[in-house]
């Protein structure tokens, strides 16, 4: 345990829940939920919700679009799927659920990560074909947000169903492979400046980072292709790998020096640690 990123992350996740609950307690600086909100007078909107609403209804309100672009820019800077790791209440819930699961298999690879992209495509084609914003209808994120803000409890059957399936049959299948919002942010995240860097010279190949990573596929290029940072959009920037690495071989930041012995300089990997 070399750093303590889990602490600020749990604080932000808990803070999100408190923010969603704040209108119930009578506070007025926040209203709405993760689909669309007003925080201290600033309108913020989920870009995928905005996309579905515009495609489905043909109605376009400039402030709505602006709020969606603001959110998109924010998550672009901090790595798109940082939403999943730091903000999303469903991510928080399933992480907690995993702790009580009889079969914790960190990063269970039931379905490939790419499935979410197909689901995203299916959602957008459905909205265009039918006018029904499929993901706003199904979204457990919206359901949890409204459960917190409005005590709308019946729809909690949906996140409960996700917890049940993940606990018994397919660990982590929702956040890893099914959520189209995660897939949407993964596309943005590929080009995000904030990334996890890898210091090959310190790595002893213990495999702790792979064991703790919710999407261990993103770490594979570090050994398979000698990459010096995690470039896959699916990285949630949860920074659990930084916390666990006993050698401080992983770091997070916006810029990375090219390491003298990295593959990008000499053309092929020098060593290949077993993951």
């Amino acid at each position, binding site marked *: 345990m070399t750093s303590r990123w889990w602490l600020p992350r749990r604080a932000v996740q808990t803070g999100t829940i408190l923010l969603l609950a704040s209108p119930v307690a009578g506070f007025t600086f926040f209203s709405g939920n993760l689909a669309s909100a007003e925080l201290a007078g600033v309108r913020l909107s989920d870009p995928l919700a905005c996309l579905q609403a515009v495609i489905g209804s043909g109605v376009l309100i400039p402030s709505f679009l602006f709020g969606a672009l603001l959110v998109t820019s924010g998550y672009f800077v901090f790595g798109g799927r940082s939403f999943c790791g730091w903000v999303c209440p469903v991510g928080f819930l399933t992480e907690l659920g995993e702790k009580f699961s009889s079969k914790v298999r960190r990063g269970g690879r039931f379905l490939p990560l790419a499935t979410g992209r197909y689901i995203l*495509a299916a959602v957008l084609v*459905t909205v265009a074909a039918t006018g029904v914003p499929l993901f706003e209808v199904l979204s457990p994120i919206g359901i949890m947000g409204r459960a917190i803000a409005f005590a709308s409890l019946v729809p909690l059957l949906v996140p409960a169903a996700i917890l049940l399936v993940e606990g018994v049959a397919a660990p982590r299948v929702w956040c890893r492979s099914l959520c189209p919002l995660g897939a949407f942010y993964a596309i943005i995240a590929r080009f995000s400046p904030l990334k996890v860097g890898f210091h090959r010279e310190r790595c002893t190949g213990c495999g702790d980072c792979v064991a703790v990573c919710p999407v261990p596929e993103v770490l594979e290029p570090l050994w398979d292709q000698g990459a010096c940072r995690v470039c896959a959009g699916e990285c949630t920037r949860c920074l659990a790998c930084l916390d666990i690495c006993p050698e401080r071989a992983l770091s997070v930041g916006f810029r990375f020096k090219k390491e003298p012995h990295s593959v990008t300089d000499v053309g092929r990997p020098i060593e290949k640690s077993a993951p």
Partner: protein
Amino acid sequence: MPKERDDSGISRRRFLKGGALAPLALALATAGGASVYLRPGEAHGFVLRPPGAIAARRFLAACVRCGKCAQACPYHAIRLQDRSVGIGTPYIAARQIPCYLCPDLPCVKACPSGALDPKTTEVEKVRMGTAQIVDREGCLSIRGLRCEVCYRQCPLIDQAITLEPRHNPRTGEHTIMEPVVHREKCVGCGVCENACVLPKPVIVVRETVEVQRDSYDF
């Protein structure tokens, strides 16, 4: 550093062997299914069911969507829903063809599952819905003209629809003959909705409101 851009490709190929076509196919298939199950069809909101239909939610379960009631209807008044959760269940689009209340109720006899209650034998006791004048300002009779088509076409004339004389405040000397629907008698067959002469009918069959038993009954 384009070499680093590989992500999660390991098992993707194993998952979908169809290459680039597969995601497109799945998206199109989803949209096809969504078009059938998420878009509302012609019959949504209140759906006028054939005579004898049991309570709406139980009807949806009991109806096996075989279409035998529709095949039995001599007037082809019964159609089948083609969208949403009621797909394949029978309905009557009264504005096109209403229910003409066959005395032997062949649709009820055809139903195998009891979705149309086999104990339904008297057409007068059928309650498919209740006719309502949805637009008083549009109704020709209420505007003071002599229309009365719904009244005259009603199979339960002078019972389900009566004409009530009223003073005409516009002319001051003529009588308004207002058609009034009586909920205890109206079977909801939709003949009036079908007969209304206006481009959009002002008398329409809507959901029957449960009879209330209250202390004011006299």
